[in-house]
């Protein structure tokens, strides 16, 4: 073994060029792989800490007013789990009037886990004292001061403490419920206690909760999981996903998008796919250089075998050589990559954290505005080296190298020692044509023959030359479409398409912003566009099977556990009703947009054409259809040219039963409207009636004039306002507020801060991905230089013979440049072919997995042309540089 190592080391020192080429290839690949891995890892760590703040610092919760709790308190540790912390929450009472309120007592651990800190005063000590957060106190209609009193369910309570707000996501889970904290002794005889458990996070928490349940005899099914944190700490049973996936594979309705979604918790699959692509790229780079150097040395291995070295030792020597380069190369690369990643993360770490944008659609609360501001971009935390990624990457690449070594050894074993010594690889078919008969110049033939003499090597080199560019183009493609999708969802789904919004928050058709009031806004200076929106609720029959997705709505799915929204059922008789075997009637939002907004809607076009003039002239409408969870839009068989029969209340201020569309015929009017276009999203939305998240409702969109003409609607529900660039949005919002102050209930919101935050966030994200792809491209270009130089170096003997035979320096350089050009052209062709395949896959994923809106952005032609030209230019340049360095040496040196 010692001899093998010595021989391997001697080889490395002797074949300096090969060693250097492999070392550089490994260094750069490792740098990229481990650097990106650490960026993702740091982002994930920061996201975990942010989730802890948003969801509370606990993993599982269960009801605990049972005897096992006493056992647990006496002995809180057991086999297979380690409880780091636990807190108990006791719900003493719940009332629904005047608001939904829970009276809660929480021990100090619970308060700590939930981040409920005392800002002022003390925790309740007496039975008539309460502590709550400022938001709750405001909602209860009392001032946020100690000593304020409030009557709840006939009892008077005094505020003794003001707390910080409950974790944001818990508030969302609790929904309308507010919490007031009471003293421990308050007991209405209806106490329910819940224990919140935090396990040791250094190992997966799911097996721990299972062990916990077994130890104390608790039904594991009664545990609720902290969904925000669980993905980061192994909170879900990995075996639970397998049956789901197996089921999905059997059911064509689910397919790859669904499986990807199941596995892609916290972007694990997305990041995994990126890292895998980088790992494959690295593997190709290393393989292409390594294969050439091994084949070149085949004769020596065979000489050693002739001298009696066994096959196993040859393989061991090969592996030893590789590892001797790999270990320092990979370590140095990891240091390099992580240093670069550290610097990048310090600058723009926030972009690596998955961020949920709050949606605003006209009835948002002010608190959300603050959450979305620049100051509230998630905290990037500190940079963490992702050791797991470094380990996995190393193991992957070592495995690749060992497989390559093994395959090469196998290949060598197929040849006789004589064949190996003679460099005869046993190729059967060879082109035996005599080229000098027809050609004056044989250097071209020589170049081609050199290139194609080892097809495996040639393909390896081509792949490694083109994969970097493919990843770059793929990244540019995804980045372009991500930007487009972000902008589109930003405007449509998040409702952040305009700086200021004025709206009526109620669900009464009577409450509108009068036309005259809206017209006043036109006179305010600094406003760029004022886009008022009219609204009416309607119903459209979908007959004879034209509605293809009955499972889409809870009302028609008939699925257990998938129940219709009781409020929608109560107020509007649900969003859809089935009237026959294949007949349905669906509630629709009918919007009237200004021309400017209709023009913006063109970005969401699925088919047809949006022309406000023509719409007014021909009284045509735009049909906004449904989108399913896999990005499909074919749920309703209505498209351009079809006619929609829409039923609307005859009285545009109708209320109550009329809006259920169950009243007598005279309460309604019916109208047939021709569809001019279909779109995927609405822009300004009204979600105070049947709701509108953008993809789960059918909308009919027309011009404001048509709304008045067809239905008699003249008032506006919302007004979207954009301010000029140089204008202070806050001051403009104040102006708008003043102008609309007389409109009852009208709310004006300034979203410019959130828009600024979102833009900053998205731009940083885009910049990062562009940056990563540029680094990748740079590495790929360095690899091209490395590979080309190596290709020259490994044939330096042949070139020296040619020089001895009389080829001029210029002739040799020309020959090398031609070879480089050929490599570049072939690499570009391979790149185009691979990219065409990759683009199709990416498009599928963008549409069906990530639900991108209209990913129509193609890679800029300039980029494609640039890359196509860059490859040959670089290859030729690299070849010539290597050729020049060869020419500087004497012929005899080889």
């Amino acid at each position: 073994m010692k001899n093998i190592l010595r021989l391997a080391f001697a080889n490395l020192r002797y074949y300096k060029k090969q060693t250097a080429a492999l070392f550089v290839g490994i260094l750069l690949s490792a740098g990229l792989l481990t650097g990106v891995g650490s960026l993702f890892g740091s982002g994930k760590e920061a996201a975990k800490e942010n989730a802890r703040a948003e969801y509370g610092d606990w993993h599982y919760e269960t009801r605990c007013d049972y005897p096992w709790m006493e056992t647990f308190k006496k002995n809180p540790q057991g086999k297979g789990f380690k409880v780091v912390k636990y807190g108990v929450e006791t719900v003493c009472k719940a009332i629904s009037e005047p608001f939904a309120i829970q009276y809660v007592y929480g021990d100090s651990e619970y308060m700590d886990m939930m981040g409920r800190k005392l800002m002022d005063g003390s925790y309740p000590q007496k039975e008539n004292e309460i502590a709550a957060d400022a938001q709750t106190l405001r909602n209860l209609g009392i001032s946020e001061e100690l000593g304020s009193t409030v009557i709840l369910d006939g009892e008077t309570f005094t505020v003794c403490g003001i707390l910080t707000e409950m974790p944001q996501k818990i508030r969302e889970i609790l929904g309308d419920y507010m919490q007031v904290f009471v003293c421990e002794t308050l007991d209405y005889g209806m106490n329910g206690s819940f224990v919140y458990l935090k396990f040791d996070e250094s190992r997966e928490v799911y097996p721990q909760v299972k062990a916990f349940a077994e130890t104390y005899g608790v039904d594991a099914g009664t545990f609720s999981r902290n969904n925000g944190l669980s993905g980061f700490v192994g909170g879900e049973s990995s075996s639970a996903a397998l049956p789901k996936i197996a089921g999905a594979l059997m059911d064509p309705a689910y397919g790859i998008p669904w499986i990807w979604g199941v596995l892609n918790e916290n972007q694990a699959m997305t990041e995994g796919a990126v890292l895998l692509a980088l790992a494959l790229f690295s593997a190709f780079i290393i393989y292409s250089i390594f294969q050439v150097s091994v084949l070149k040395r085949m004769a020596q291995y065979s000489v050693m075998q002739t001298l009696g070295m066994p096959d196993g030792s040859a393989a061991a020597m090969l592996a030893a050589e590789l590892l001797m380069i790999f270990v320092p190369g990979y370590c140095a690369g990891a240091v390099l990559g992580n240093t670069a990643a550290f610097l990048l993360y310090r600058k723009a770490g926030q972009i690596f954290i998955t961020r949920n944008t709050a949606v605003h659609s006209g009835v948002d609360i002010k608190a959300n505005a603050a959450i979305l501001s620049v100051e509230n971009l998630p905290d990037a935390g500190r940079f963490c080296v992702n050791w797991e990624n470094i380990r996995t990457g190393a193991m992957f690449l070592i495995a690749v190298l060992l497989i390559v070594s093994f395959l090469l050894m196998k290949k060598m074993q197929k040849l006789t020692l004589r064949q190996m010594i003679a460099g005869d690889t046993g190729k059967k078919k060879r082109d035996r044509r005599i080229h000098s008969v027809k050609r004056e110049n044989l250097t071209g033939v020589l170049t081609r023959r050199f290139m194609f003499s080892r097809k495996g090597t040639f393909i390896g080199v081509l792949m490694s030359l083109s994969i970097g560019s493919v990843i770059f183009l793929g990244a540019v493609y995804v980045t372009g479409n991500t930007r487009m999708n972000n902008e589109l969802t930003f405007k449509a789904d998040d409702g952040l398409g305009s700086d200021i919004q004025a709206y009526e928050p109620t669900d009464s058709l009577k409450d509108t912003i009068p036309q005259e009031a809206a017209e006043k806004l036109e006179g305010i200076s600094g406003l760029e566009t004022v886009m008022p929106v009219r609204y009416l609720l309607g119903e459209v029959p979908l007959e004879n099977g034209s509605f293809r997705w009955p499972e889409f709505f809870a009302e028609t799915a008939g699925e257990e556990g998938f129940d219709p929204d009781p409020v929608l059922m109560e107020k509007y008789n649900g969003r859809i009703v089935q009237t026959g075997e294949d007949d349905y009637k669906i509630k629709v939002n009918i919007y009237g947009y200004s021309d400017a907004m209709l023009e913006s809607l063109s970005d969401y076009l699925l088919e047809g054409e949006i022309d406000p003039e023509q719409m007014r002239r021909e009284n045509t409408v735009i049909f906004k259809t449904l989108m399913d969870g896999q990005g499909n839009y074919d749920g309703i068989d209505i498209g351009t040219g079809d006619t929609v029969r829409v039923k609307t209340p005859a009285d545009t201020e109708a209320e109550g039963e009329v809006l259920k569309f169950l009243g007598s015929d005279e309460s309604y009017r019916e109208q047939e409207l021709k569809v001019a276009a279909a779109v995927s999203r609405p822009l300004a939305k009204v979600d105070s009636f049947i709701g509108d998240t953008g993809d789960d409702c059918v909308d009919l969109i027309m011009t404001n004039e048509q709304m008045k003409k067809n239905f008699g609607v003249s008032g506006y529900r919302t007004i979207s306002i954009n301010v000029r660039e140089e204008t202070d949005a806050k001051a403009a919002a104040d102006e708008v507020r003043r102008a609309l102050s007389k409109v009852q209930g009208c709310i004006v919101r300034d979203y410019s801060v959130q828009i600024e935050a979102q833009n900053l966030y998205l731009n940083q994200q885009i910049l990062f991905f562009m940056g990563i792809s540029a680094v990748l491209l740079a590495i790929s270009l360095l690899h091209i230089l490395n590979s080309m130089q190596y290709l020259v170096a490994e044939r330096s003997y042949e070139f020296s013979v040619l020089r001895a035979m009389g080829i001029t320096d210029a002739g040799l350089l020309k020959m090398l440049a031609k070879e480089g050009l050929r490599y570049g052209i072939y690499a570009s062709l391979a790149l185009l072919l691979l990219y065409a395949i990759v683009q199709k896959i990416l498009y599928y994923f963008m549409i069906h997995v990530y639900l991108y809106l209209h990913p129509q952005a193609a890679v800029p032609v300039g980029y494609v042309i640039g890359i196509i030209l860059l490859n040959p230019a670089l290859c030729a340049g690299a070849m010539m540089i290597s050729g020049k360095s060869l020419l500087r040496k004497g012929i005899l040196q080889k």
Partner: protein
Amino acid sequence: MEILQVKHIHKIYGEKENEVHALRDVTFSVKIGEFIAIVGTSGSGKSTLLNLIGGLDTPTQGQIIIRGHNIAALRRKELTIFRRRNIGFVFQNYSLMPVLNIYDNVALPVTFDKGKHVDHDYICELLKGLGIWDKRKRFPNELSGGQQQRTALARALANKPALILADEPTGNLDTSTTVEVMGLLKESSRRYNQTILMVTHNEALAQACDRIIRIEDGQINCAKGGETI
């Protein structure tokens, strides 16, 4: 008429304590059509001398004049072209292009000269003369050592050079093939009136040449006959 004059050639490799004096004041001349053997022990400087004559290396001191041109004074490109047109090489390890067939290997040096058409009749004659015409579509690794050396010889002759430099051309061959190749060299020298300088350490082969130049420790050894005719 003299085709080659070697005048007071010195060749020193390395510097200071690593200095090796490979050739010391070597002087001799060669007439057209001569077949000369350069003989010496291993490390005596015979291959160095051949490389200097071939322009593959430059002398530290002295002149090498071929057909009236001092090759040490030629510029790089001029030297390359001069070498291509006037000197043919035959190496001990054949040095054929593994990716070209025999015919193309032979024609290759001719194609380096722009505007110079490959004389296919001549190549055909060469290949037939050397007995490898039927192997013309084979690749080097498909031939025996003797056949490869014949190919190398054909390649050296393809440009009709005035001078052929052969460095141990039979070093890798068995006795009968050695005799064959020697016969071919002599035959070429006679048929095309070419001058051949052949490095060898085989005394018997040297005896078959027109003249022997003996080199020892970088000098022409006059004591042992120096130049023997």
